[in-house]
């Protein structure tokens, strides 16, 4: 039937086998070319895009988180500084207040002391002058009685009393 007898199974039994093989394979090829490979490749592209998008998103989120952290740190540092400054100020203010108070107290005590001294001085002077007058009168009366001499001459009497008192004043000093 076929030429080249003697090749045995190396010759196709039917030439139709070659045609059938080619046609059937071409149909498979066509379907896979038109439908299968595009579907697979589209899925792969979509997946790659999805993964890339996800990665970008994650990176962005990370960057945002880092920025927020930086900001918080900065804020914290500022707050600490502020607190330290306020503390220092308070300390300084406290010291000033204490000093002022002390000064005021000192001034006040000095003033009171002064007042007291002045008052004492005044009272003493008053007492002295009063005493002098009274003592003078008494002494004059007493002396007049003792001596009998009229000491009506005021001018003379007063001078005598003064002299006496002066001598009295001098005496305790000299005695001491």
């Amino acid at each position, binding site marked *: 039937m076929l030429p080249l007898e003697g090749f045995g199974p190396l010759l196709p039994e039917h030439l139709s*086998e070659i*045609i059938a093989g080619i046609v059937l394979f071409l149909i498979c090829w066509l379907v896979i070319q038109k439908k*299968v490979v595009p579907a697979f490749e589209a*899925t792969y592209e979509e997946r790659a895009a999805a993964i890339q998008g996800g990665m970008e998103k994650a990176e962005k989120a990370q960057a945002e988180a880092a920025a927020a952290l930086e900001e918080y740190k900065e804020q914290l540092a500022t707050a600490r500084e502020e607190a330290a400054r306020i503390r220092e100020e308070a300390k300084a203010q406290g010291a000033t207040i204490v000093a002022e108070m002390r000064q005021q107290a000192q001034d006040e005590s000095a003033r009171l002391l002064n007042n007291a001294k002045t008052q004492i001085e005044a009272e003493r002077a008053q007492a002295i002058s009063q005493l002098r007058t009274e003592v003078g009168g008494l002494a004059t009366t007493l002396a007049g009685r003792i001596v009998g001499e009229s000491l009506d001459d005021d001018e003379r009497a007063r001078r005598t009393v003064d002299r006496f008192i002066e001598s009295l004043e001098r005496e305790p000093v000299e005695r001491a």
Partner: protein
Amino acid sequence: MGGLASRLIPLEGEGDHSGWPPSAESFNSRPLFPDLGPQFSWLNNHLTQAVIAAIIVIAFWLWMARRQTVVPSRKQFLGEQFYNLIRNTIARDALGHDYRRFLPYLIALFTFIWINNLFGQFFLFMFPTFSKIGYAYGLALLTWLLYNGAGIAKWGFGTYMRKMTLPEGVPKALWALIIPLEFLSNFIVRPFTLALRLFANMFAGHLVVMVFVIGSTMLLAMTEPANGFPVALLKTAGGIGIVFSFAIFALELLVGAIQAYIFTVLTAQYVASSIAESH
């Protein structure tokens, strides 16, 4: 069983050409409609199984390509593993960034050959389609057209022929030797080796399977001593033969997959060599 069905399923050891010992005649096709005469002998059981193989290939890939999602389901994951085997380890490795254009061809090639080889062990037929050499010639011819077509489309006929017959750096003295050799190697030997490798593996494998299965069955069926061997020994040998046939089947499963892989890899390699920048 009678009629069409009996002509489709395997009937090893029976029928017109089969018998003992198995031979090339055992591979002859059975016409589906013998009453119509020899002009319809092409409508035979092997054509039927080739058609079914093509339908399985198309159905499988269409099923895998259906309703794909970014996050793959288990089915899609399986499909992608298979797809990636051809896409990444065969097409991309051999063809580089050009692989997309040839990917459908390679996928169709691998799957079509593999399914047909699996028919040697499965799906009722028990016959690898490519042990009929016509089918192997058909695919080899297509591959030949593909790699030459791709080369000519890229370089133009003259440049392509020069690239394929004259490797760079060959001294002029050797041209007379190299040009015919390269021509022979690249245009004649390639398609024939491609077809013969696939055919011979499938043919030989199926022949061995037949020897084991039919021979063992015959031994088991022995009822009287033959050639001086007692019946018990013959039956034991038959039992062992059946057990061994399972090992042969396992080997044939492996060979079928390997041959499909090799055919596809070589096709990718040939295409790569014809479109490569420097030969």
